[in-house]
């Protein structure tokens, strides 16, 4: 049995995934997280900045949750007793630090049916900025190649593994794309085109500086949004287990906060240490 490849991906694409697949039968049949662009991800190579680590378990049985950010979003890492080496390394890591993580892609489905993706690290290593940039460049190359094939596949009347393969990709890639179309439909590719540009700009210093100057004005959360979110969380947390993310999104929308404004406010509060995620998909005030 040959080893599964470690995909180079951006967090933005990975976090859009809502579907897991198992290929073959038996205990050792590999599972994959299927992204909307048809990446069938069993293993992934993540490179980014570790922004926080938390032990959700006990000292005796730790379960570390780490958040690693890349230019397109945040990776969620979970390492516990079954990943002793990676868990020890994650527990010792001092954010902020640049990490490269090799791990397995996992999905988690809430009782409400919402699906979240995360990474279970196998290997974890502190690296320098140049090494991280190389991984991001590879993620950009991979996304660019996938976008081109997916765009061509969307042009086909009914994409099949054979017709997609004829567009110039491997059988495995064609299979993923056909399954993604069946699962997600034809998604808006401009979102991923923008993600690709975002990732690349991050790697070019003059582009990065120009964006940061704009970002200070446009992307800072509006004053007061963070307080609104805290108030909402208080109301939604009925059993002390925190508020479900879906409910928070719905309540925020009613209160005039769109998804991106909410996300920015939540990020700010997480950074400030005012809220945390006790389990994936739930937010709680501290």
């Amino acid at each position, binding site marked *: 049995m040959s080893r599964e490849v470690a995909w180079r991906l951006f967090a933005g694409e990975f976090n859009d995934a809502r579907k897991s697949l198992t290929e073959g039968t038996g205990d050792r049949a590999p599972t994959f997280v299927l992204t909307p662009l048809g990446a069938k991800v069993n293993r992934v190579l993540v490179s980014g900045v570790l922004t926080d680590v938390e032990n959700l378990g006990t000292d005796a049985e730790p379960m570390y949750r780490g958040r690693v950010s890349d230019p397109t979003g945040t990776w969620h890492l979970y390492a516990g007793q079954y990943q002793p080496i990676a868990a020890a390394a994650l527990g010792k890591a001092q954010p902020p630090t640049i990490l490269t993580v090799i791990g397995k892609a996992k999905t988690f489905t809430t009782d409400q049916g919402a699906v979240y993706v995360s990474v279970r690290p196998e290997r974890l290593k502190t690296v320098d900025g140049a090494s991280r940039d190389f991984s991001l460049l590879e993620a950009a190359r991979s996304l660019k190649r996938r976008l081109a094939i997916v765009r061509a596949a969307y042009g086909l009347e009914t994409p099949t593994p054979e017709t997609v393969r004829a567009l110039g990709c491997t059988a495995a890639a064609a299979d993923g794309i056909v399954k993604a179309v069946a699962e997600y439909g034809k998604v808006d590719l401009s979102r991923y085109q923008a993600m690709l*540009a975002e990732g690349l700009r991050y790697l070019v210093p003059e582009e990065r500086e120009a964006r940061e100057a704009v970002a200070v004005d446009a992307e800072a959360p509006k004053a007061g949004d963070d307080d609104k979110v805290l108030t909402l969380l208080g109301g939604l947390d009925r059993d002390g287990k925190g508020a479900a993310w879906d409910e928070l999104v719905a309540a925020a929308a009613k209160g005039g906060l769109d998804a991106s404004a909410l996300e920015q406010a939540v990020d700010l509060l997480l950074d400030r240490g005012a809220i945390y995620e006790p389990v994936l998909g739930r937010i709680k005030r501290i």
Partner: protein
Amino acid sequence: MATETETHVKDIVKALGNRVPETEIARELENYVNVYRVTLDTAKKSIVKKHGGNPAALVTAAANRSIKDLQTGEASVNLLCRVVYAERRTVNVQDGAKEILTGILGDDSGTVPFTAWEAEGLDLAKGDVLRVQNAYTKDYKGKIEVHLGTRAVITREPPETLPFPGKSSTPSGPLKAVTIADLKDGMGNLSLRGRVLQVEPKEVTVEGAKKTVFQGVLADASGRVQFSAWKDFGLRAGTALQLEGGYVRSYRGLPQLSFDDRSKVQVLADDDLPGLEQLAQAPRAWIEDLAERGGAVDVTLRGIVVDVKEGSGLIQRCPECRRVLAKEGCRLHGTVKGQSDLRVKAVVDDGSGALTAIFGRELTEALLGKTLEQCLTDAREAMNAEVVRDALTDLLVAQPLEVRGNVTSDDYGLMMMVEEARVLRVDVQEEARAMLAELEEHP
């Protein structure tokens, strides 16, 4: 009526390898059919069995098949074919070692790899024409293979039964125009252009006779392949040639091209192949392509080390056979005094696939910046041989590398014996700028 009986008698005699006279068989058949009144079919089988033959040899009714029409998973296949290549191999099976014959069979329509599992007494040589009955086919890594099991019957036929397809004077099969990257196990009758990168004569003994084989590496723009020329074609490093004929055998996924006096080799005076210097650069390969091909000679990969496997670092080797020692000693030589050595078994991943890369002692010392002796001292001080592996893991995991070497494959996937390795430095900014510009031009 008489002629029909005669045909059946001939069938039986043939199935018994002409060991029993026709008159005797005719008498027996008469006895079975007319006195005991068993069906003709049963009678024939019984007679063959009685004389110690294989009743399966009687199955002559099914027509011979063309190799190119073979499907995977066929239970009974008859072929009239020629041995393109055959060799004896010893394989490990459940109850110990077993000798098998493996090689390539060919007819006008194509060639196919074969394995004969009952090799004892079976003596097949290149060029033999065979009538194969009751073979079966299987799929191996997406390719069809012919298997000759206990039920198979192999009879030799006179050579003129099947005109030789590869013979240049009587070309009967169509030549297949290929590039070196196309070469796969079992291919024959090729039309190929390439430049000899290196070649040297080697004395070998084939079936008791001394022979000179010219071994080397042939390259074109698509890749390179090891070759064996069984005749002196006057090849030198730099020679550009046009080959017609030849066949391909794979060793652990690594294709090997062979050709002999039945192939036509023309040295090209004038050619448009890339020059020797250009071809000497190992081509950059993607692991997903290598996985499809099964292996390649001298390629360059760029990837990231994603794991350093067990068996890396300080190891002990058998002084007799150089095998890595397990706790209980050498697999072949039992308890021996091991010799220390250094190596790395790393997983290198280029985003398209992953392979195991083996770094020998010299490369490992260079990567670590330490000699074997220093590593032994480290291990003694720590009282733990694993410290060397830990140091290698620390050093290599997440490290982008460029590695060069031969790639082979087995059931566990691809493996590279690394000849050269260097830390990969890429001008990320420059490449990102170029991609960004392209993106803005063609949104």
